[in-house]
């Protein structure tokens, strides 16, 4: 167990076995972004805005608050891994149709939070959606179209 320096973390990244490298305390966000997966965004660096959201073993985490060392052996899904081949996820489709994305910077995190919600709650109420997205700040939409998108996505699943 090396004490410091570069850590090589083996994980499953969007379904593929991958190696991420960096300082053990480096943010998973930075490791992902420097590996070319720039979909997760940094909006605040303090776990407040949720734009860096990814799924770690199926649960939503802020990758800006996740040290790289904690990704060892984990299965990570980023926004780039949500659509399969050319098929968008229901949440992504609904965001397009109902105006859930405006400037798009919160969208990756918003989509990940919504995907996580639908993975555990088949028929969410608007209140469920509000609670599930409370850690994802959006300055453009006022959230209304995002709620509608997620509720519609749930209906289509």
């Amino acid at each position: 167990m090396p004490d410091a320096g570069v850590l090589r973390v083996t994980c499953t990244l969007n379904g593929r076995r991958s190696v991420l490298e960096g300082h053990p305390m480096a943010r998973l966000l930075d490791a992902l972004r420097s590996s070319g997966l720039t979909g997760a965004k940094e909006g605040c660096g303090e776990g407040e805005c949720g734009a860096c959201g990814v799924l770690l073993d199926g649960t939503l985490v802020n990758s800006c608050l996740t040290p790289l060392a904690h990704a060892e052996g984990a299965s990570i899904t980023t926004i780039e891994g949500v659509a399969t081949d050319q098929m968008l996820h229901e949440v992504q489709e609904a965001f397009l149709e109902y105006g859930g994305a405006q400037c798009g910077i919160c969208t990756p995190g918003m989509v990940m939070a919504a995907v996580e919600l639908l993975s555990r709650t088949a028929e969410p109420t608007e209140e469920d959606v509000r609670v599930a997205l409370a850690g994802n700040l959006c300055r453009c939409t006022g959230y209304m179209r995002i709620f509608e998108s997620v509720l519609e996505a749930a209906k289509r699943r």
Partner: protein
Amino acid sequence: MIPLLDKYQLVVPRSLREALDDLAKHPSARPFAGGTDLMVVLEAGHLPEGRYVSLQNCPELLGIQALDGGGIPGHRSLGEGVSIGALTTYTEIQRSARLAREYPLLGVAARETGGVATQNRGTIGGNIANASPAADTPPVLLVYDAELELMSASGIRRVPYHGFHRGYKNMDLAPGEIIGRVILPSRSVWLPPSAFARSASADRRSLGGGWSGGTSDQRGSYYRKVGTRRAQAIAKVCFAGTIRVDNGVVQDTRIALGSVAPTVIRALATEEALRGQQLDSNTIAAAERALLSEIAPIDDIRSTARYRSRVAGNLLREFLSSALSPGPLP
């Protein structure tokens, strides 16, 4: 700001034993749980340099276990109750049916902490060790008379949670020692298992609690966090309380608050002003005076001392008023 990471080490031992040995070997090393506080402090440039020991491969620190009968293997229990591993996340707390039944304020407080992503990674032990006076869950632990199992390479020691915070960010924690588990004793179960417990999210207010019983032997509990917004807020005042009233007389009560002192506090003088008293307006006024005498709120960027005092008093009144007329909270 962007921290220079070469001044930090983060090791991930493969077991609790290895982690405790590592902490023993490096007295200045610090435990690292979910990271939802420490990584923020790191980004802010305030994380002390040095060695951090991740606890993530420590199954002994996971799970919500009943202490009926033998307790958890290897740890003799002192009585029935619930043992919550320090690495239990806020999400796991919210999903525990047993906690919702017996210690309902805990789930309410957990829901109030950050957003889903924070709740998925933030841990109850980490929340205690972060020692924020504004933490959402610790006031609940105080009213439930929680105890802590502190673990180190040389063994386990059990201490009451009340008194654990000795001052601002100052804890009764020796070098090499970690918070291992949080014990909620059965004596602090405030509601019979069948009792109705209201949840905070049902009415989208930071208010939760429940009531049971008739005019004799009523038991109630109450939790309210006052932040500026309804999610992702740092508490300006946080209030947790339990109370038992028999024919209008307060038999027992426990009250704790956050964000009104350098640590979360148990409001002992307030409790004393209530215990054994007829719950009427005189008693409530006396309790409020007692409360104001034992809190020490400050002005900061989030609120003012005056607001915190007035709201703390109002929350006490709301709590006690609901005890006078149990039923749906306002």
